[in-house]
């Protein structure tokens, strides 16, 4: 009897430390953040002065925050869509029995390995009109070439998108390739016999089968896009002005350089809410799926 009940308790004991710490880390700090957001904390956390929702009110009155949100919208859509599109395209092409597939795969994937702390400078050069691509084209004699997105307020965020896609497309490629490789070969054979052309086979049969892969890739990428911080910091630091600011950098600047911790906390709450809006449905499906599988 003892053995039996011990076996029942042991698993719980084993995961307890991780979960206690993990939950403290996630939810404890989340609550802590929530509390801060209703105080007037500035340089340091300060729990004495309760100001209600004042920080949230100021937050939504700030042009910079609205710009950050708008940028997040633009960035997420283009970054997730772009990475998906490029990654999946590359995966489809790579799946055509390509020579040097291993090498190419590594080339597409390596940006994942590098932080923007490392590649930021190179990117800044490449995108900078007077140092990078534009200059290169001019040097090569293509005088009308124009590429100054980085320095224009309304286009700087697209530079961030380009760099973001550069970093993540390989990941999308890897997942899609994995998905493609998992498809039963005979399905493609059947479609060929049924008379479908190659583009149709991909469009009508393979892409629909890959939907779960697409879904999880989109999920991973979209949460990365909400968390994206290094990318923006290293590339534009939110500039020019604050035109490429995103919520993560906004929160960082407010909390750490501006001495407006309360405001920063309020923006963090908004970010967490956004994350929750994406994650909770996913969690729900994850938890609900197959209640008694095996």
């Amino acid at each position: 009897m003892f053995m039996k009940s011990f076996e029942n308790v042991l698993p719980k004991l084993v995961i307890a430390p991780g979960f206690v710490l993990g939950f403290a880390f996630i939810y404890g700090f989340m609550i802590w953040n929530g509390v801060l957001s209703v105080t007037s904390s500035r340089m340091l956390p300060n729990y004495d002065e309760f100001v209600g929702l004042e920080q949230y009110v100021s937050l939504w009155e700030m042009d910079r925050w609205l710009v950050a949100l708008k940028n997040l919208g633009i960035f997420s859509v283009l970054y997730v869509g772009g990475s998906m599109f490029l990654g999946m395209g590359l995966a489809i092409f790579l799946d055509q029995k390509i020579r040097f597939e291993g090498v190419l795969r590594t080339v597409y994937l390596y940006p994942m390995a590098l932080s923007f702390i490392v590649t930021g400078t190179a990117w800044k050069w490449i995108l900078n009109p007077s140092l990078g691509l534009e200059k290169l084209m001019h040097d090569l004699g293509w005088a009308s070439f124009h590429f100054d997105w980085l320095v224009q307020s309304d286009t700087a965020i697209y530079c961030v998108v380009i760099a973001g896609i550069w970093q993540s497309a390989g990941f999308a490629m890897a997942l899609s390739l994995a998905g493609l490789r998992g498809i039963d070969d005979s399905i493609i054979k059947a479609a060929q016999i049924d008379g479908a052309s190659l583009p149709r086979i991909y469009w009508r049969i393979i892409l629909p089968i890959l939907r779960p892969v697409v879904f999880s890739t989109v999920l991973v990428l979209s949460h990365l896009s909400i968390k994206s911080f290094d990318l923006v910091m290293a590339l534009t630091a939110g500039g020019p002005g604050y035109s490429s600011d995103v919520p993560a950098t906004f929160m960082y600047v407010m909390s750490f350089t501006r001495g407006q911790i309360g405001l920063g906390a309020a923006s963090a709450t908004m970010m967490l809410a956004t994350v929750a809006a994406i994650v909770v449905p996913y969690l729900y499906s994850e938890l609900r799926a197959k209640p008694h599988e095996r």
Partner: protein
Amino acid sequence: MAASLHIAGIRKVFGKGAKAVEVLKKIDIDVAPGEFLILVGPSGCGKSTLLNIIAGLEEPTEGELRIAGKNVIGVAPAQRDIAMVFQSYALYPTMSVADNIGFALEMRKVPKAARLKRIHEVAAMLQIEQLLDRRPAQLSGGQRQRVAMGRALARDPQLFLFDEPLSNLDAKLRVEMRAEIKRLHLVSGITSVYVTHDQIEAMTLGSRIAVMKDGILQQIGTPDDIYRRPANTYVAGFIGSPTMNFIAGQVDGTGADAVFSFEGGELRLPCPTVGKVTLGQRPEHIHLDPDATWRGEVILVEPTGADTYVVVRTGVGLITVRTPPSTQVLMGDVVGLSVSGRHNNWFDAQSGLRLI
């Protein structure tokens, strides 16, 4: 719309240079219009490869291939007017059953109305009308199998190819689907090539059976032929369950004097030759005979209900005997064995080839 199929000198080599493997070695088969040809053979013998070549999914290295008299080498699968059923069914998982069945028609630009009509016809034939809106994942194995058949039938092709379509089903369902396929073939009359490694399927379904091994055609003939007059010991052992009993021995004398003697016994049988031979006898042609001199110990009694199989250890190895269920033998009994003598299969001891 039944078409003939002409396969001549087909070779297939995978890989190049040192790594080249010859998977098919000069296969010649002719299939008459409306025939149901079975390809059997052990795993890896090249059955699927041959089928893929017929379908146009692989190119043969060498050889001739004609469907309805038309050379189809180099013709795309879609243009060959064939339909194929796969072991894994290969249903499109994201489409409904109706869409699965209608896909080939859609690709051939059949107008929607006509397509729907055909889908319903086929579904009615297979009794899956109530499933048309489901996804493959919501179907049972047998239902999936039916949908896969429906997909192939919808187009009313010239040629039907099946690659082990039943091997993912359980025993009971397999028996039912076997009958179903046979029925559909009778109704449609479409020329079919059917790959299996289940010899019962081969026996019951085919109008002719082609037995393959290591890329070489061993024998081709009607089920009856193959069962009663196997061309070599390989085919003899492969077809029939329980498997044929082989008795290695020596024939001395000719005509009425001929004696077949072997370890632990001898039999007076009409023998085709003298010297070392192997006698093949199916379990149903060996009998328990209390008076026989050839004796052995019963080591296993397997009652299947309708019959009981008795396995006897003799000087030439284990011999399986089919007996009526009423037979009362027990493990450990020593029994005598006799052969009827009318169903002898004689093989050369060396080459394993059939003698006469």
